[in-house]
């Protein structure tokens, strides 16, 4: 480096890299603005991409200043964490995998490295190697920070979806006057079965239902806990004056329940929702007859 001081042994590679980053801030940001990571995220204007690049360079310089090139938790990164998260999220939305985003981050190294080599023609090979390694480690840490941020974003997304899943609307469908049906779908754990029971009981009141059909076609596994939840729901509905019919018991599930020793006891069961509806209509005294074949009906 041109203005390399005589007592250079005091300056650590990290501080050399810091000085390099500060000196070449503008050029590095300009070159990064042309890389896919910045170019495709900051589409409004090139200046915007350059500014974002400068923010990252500044953060890297601060981390190098604090001699924390290997520490992803370095305070210097905190200023760009949010920006990195937005960039990562934008690339994910564009359909890139985390690995692809990571290699786009890796692509930030060569332009910076080229600048470092170009201006260090007077440095000894050992010095240059030390600086180059430090810069590489620093950018590797940046990659780690970006990936950490992406992972914590993913985790919070999963947490949100878990909550959503719990509240997946459990629709109560009115099939006929006095007959409601609840199609149960997915895993019936304690939390969800509580939601199902509440929705069903409210519907029994609102719709003046005398019959409630619980259809378990969409429940993949009926174990003793699921059976227990079903029986509790049926018992509660019965207390409110509604008779429950459980439908949609597939052959494999029926055999499994028998082996497991599960007995739904007094609960009425039917193979399909149609059978269950037929049963309820019959109990209500409603008869459905096919129209006469020769079109002799009304019309």
């Amino acid at each position, binding site marked *: 480096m041109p203005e390399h001081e005589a007592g250079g042994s005091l300056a650590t590679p990290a501080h050399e890299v810091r000085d390099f980053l500060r000196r070449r801030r503008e050029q590095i940001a300009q070159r990064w603005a042309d890389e896919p990571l910045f170019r495709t995220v900051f589409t409004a204007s090139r200046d915007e991409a350059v500014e974002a690049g400068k923010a990252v360079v500044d953060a890297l310089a601060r981390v190098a200043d604090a001699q924390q090139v290997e520490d992803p938790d370095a305070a210097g990164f905190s200023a760009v964490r949010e920006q990195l998260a937005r960039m990562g999220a934008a690339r994910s939305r564009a359909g890139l995998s985390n690995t692809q985003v990571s290699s786009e981050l890796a692509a930030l190294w060569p332009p910076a490295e080229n600048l470092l080599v170009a201006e260090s023609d007077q440095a000894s090979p050992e010095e240059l190697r030390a600086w180059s390694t430090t810069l590489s480690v620093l950018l590797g840490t940046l990659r780690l920070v970006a990936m950490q941020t992406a992972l914590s974003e993913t985790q919070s997304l999963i947490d949100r979806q878990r909550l959503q899943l719990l509240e997946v609307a459990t629709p109560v469908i009115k099939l006929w006057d006095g007959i409601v049906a609840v199609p149960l779908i997915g895993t019936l754990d304690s939390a969800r079965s509580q939601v199902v029971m509440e929705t069903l009981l409210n519907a029994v009141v609102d719709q003046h239902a005398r019959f409630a059909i619980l259809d378990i076609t969409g429940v993949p596994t009926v174990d003793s806990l699921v059976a227990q939840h079903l029986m509790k729901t049926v018992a509660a509905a019965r207390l409110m004056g509604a008779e429950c019919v459980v439908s949609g018991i597939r052959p*494999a599930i029926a055999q499994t329940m028998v082996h497991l020793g599960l007995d739904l006891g007094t609960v009425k069961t039917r193979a399909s929702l149609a059978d269950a509806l037929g049963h309820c209509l019959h109990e209500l005294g409603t008869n459905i007859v096919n129209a006469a074949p020769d079109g002799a009906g009304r019309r």
Partner: protein
Amino acid sequence: MHTAAGVEARLPIRSDMDLVWVRQHVRQAAAQLGFGLVDQTKLVTAASELARNTLVHGGGGLMEATHVRAGGAEGLRLSFSDSGPGIPDLERALSDGYTSGGGLGMGLGGSRRLVHDFEVESTPGSGTTVRVTSWATRPPRQRGAV
């Protein structure tokens, strides 16, 4: 050689979400080994019961799935282990209707009827391991000559 990828696994059992994962893995592994729909459902249901026992009574643990072979038949062995309080009276725990956790009391005894081999090892104070094995009744697809 039949591939074991996607069959063998070690899954932690620490929450209700992990139970979902256990069921899905067992279903998929059993399907891959050529289990019929009924046998798949039985094994998944047994796994669900045993994994819940591991979670509720054992305070969490681990399920290990292993691909086993005997006489040209393909099987799936599931091992549920925890380091919980153990089962003091195994005879009673295996009988239908006995429960210590407010359930129906069908879990342990019921799952024994859902699988071909069933083994419990329990040391009071240091944990429980339940090993179950089921065999595919029909040979898996794409099997070469034996």
